């Protein structure tokens, strides 16, 4: 469609052309031509007279009948919209009149009723229009029938050139995108490298203080262990004496201690003589002088110094001495 202040509209009628601005200050001019070769000159002449801004002007061309044939086609196979133009172009003789010149065609589906709108114009006419626009320094935007402006009847050469331009643009965009990605990758890698270098530098700088700190921590741990060990030793210092004192206090009067053994894990044994060996165990358990006291073996009766005694052995603690 026609947009912007620098767009011209060129209407081609049989034997004459009319050029007008579509925006900005209104301007219009007409010229006549006798033959198709003169059409290019006429377009160039009129376009040169048109007011322009600094941007390259674009021109949109409308063709009047009978320079263009427009048809409503029914009964076409239901091809995709992008394939419809090719289908019509392959059967131009079936849908359009031909008078010896090749035809450029275009077609579009109209709604959902299976009806297509198609248009055709002679290639020499279209070539002349394109040549005239090019000679006038205009950029040809579209060539369409007046009553079907949605169709595009650009000549084959122009279409091929546009396809080439589009391919070139696509290639450039692809190269640009690849270059942008490559640059981003390089920048990212460079950033990684620089950060790594900075981190390594800082780590190297911290190496000596860290070694000193590690040594200090080691010394501290050693000192802490020293203090704890000595506290434990102090705590355990009187355990043996207290155990012995508790046993001595717990033994009943009618008993004599013959031997006492005690280990640091709390186990041990004591043996001796008593009037009643079981009373010794009971006294030890009642007073909690030693943990888990129990007789080891039966008490043996003995006569010592003319008196009857029971010789006993009591073990205590989790293990045996």
């Amino acid at each position, binding site marked *: 469609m026609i947009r912007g202040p620098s767009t011209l509209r060129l209407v081609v009628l049989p034997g004459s052309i009319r050029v007008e601005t579509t925006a900005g200050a209104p301007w219009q001019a007409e010229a006549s031509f006798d033959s198709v070769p003169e059409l290019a000159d006429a377009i160039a002449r009129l376009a040169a007279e048109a007011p322009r801004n600094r941007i390259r002007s674009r021109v949109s061309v409308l063709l009047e009948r009978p320079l263009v044939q427009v048809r409503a086609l029914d009964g076409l196979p239901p091809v995709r919209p992008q394939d419809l133009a090719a289908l019509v172009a392959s059967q131009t003789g079936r849908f359009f009149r031909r008078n010896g010149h090749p035809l450029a065609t275009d077609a579009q589906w109209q709604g959902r009723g299976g009806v297509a709108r198609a248009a055709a114009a002679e290639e020499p006419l279209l070539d002349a229009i394109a040549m005239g626009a090019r000679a006038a320094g205009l950029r040809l935007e579209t060539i369409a029938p007046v009553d079907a402006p949605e169709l595009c009847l650009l000549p084959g050469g122009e279409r091929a050139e546009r396809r080439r331009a589009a391919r070139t643009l696509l290639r450039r965009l692809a190269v640009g995108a690849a270059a942008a990605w490559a640059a981003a990758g390089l920048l990212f890698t460079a950033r990684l490298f620089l950060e790594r270098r900075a981190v390594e530098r800082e780590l190297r700088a911290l190496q000596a203080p860290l070694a000193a700190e590690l040594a200090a921590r080691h010394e501290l741990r050693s000192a802490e262990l020293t203090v704890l060990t*000595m506290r434990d*030793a102090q705590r355990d210092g009187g355990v*043996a004496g207290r155990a012995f004192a508790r046993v001595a206090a717990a033994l009943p009067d009618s008993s004599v201690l013959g031997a006492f053994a005690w280990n640091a894990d709390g186990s041990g044994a004591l043996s001796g003589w008593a009037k009643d060996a079981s009373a010794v165990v009971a006294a030890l358990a009642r007073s909690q002088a030693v943990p888990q006291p129990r007789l080891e073996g039966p008490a043996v009766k003995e006569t010592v110094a003319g008196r009857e005694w029971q010789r006993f052995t009591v073990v205590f603690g989790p293990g045996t001495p």
Partner: protein
Amino acid sequence: MIAGALLVLRVLPAAARIVYQARAELQARAELLARARADLAGLGELRDSAATLSQDVVALAPRLVAGASATDAVATIASELSLAATRHGLKLAATAPLEADSTAGRLHRVRVHAQMEGDIRGFASLLRALEASDPVLVVRDLRVTAPAPSTDSRGPEALAIELTVEGWYLK
């Protein structure tokens, strides 16, 4: 086309792998650096702990057995035991070092087995004295054997005493 395929299928994945590894390494090094900084930031606290601990260690000095080697420490313990036995009316028959290879930091443990003779009163006071002694001496094993009761109780009581004493020295 072949160059493009090589680029997409070989070069780019390899480059991506290298960059990914480099990034992972960088992260690991950065974490290491952060930990190192945090450690160094705790130096002040470490100094405070060190000051307190050094006071505690200094206070421990009298409680340690004198000597810089196991032999010295064993001799010191034997001497302490001999002195204590004499003081409490016991007779020190023999002392022998026992193997004790335990260490705690710079502390090393020594053990001495001692055989004594004497009465129950002297033995009890010896135990009490060892409990309160400096250096700290811990009785680990104890065996007391009394003679069988007899009609003749006028003679002095003679207990056979065996004990294992351990102490710590600083190397």
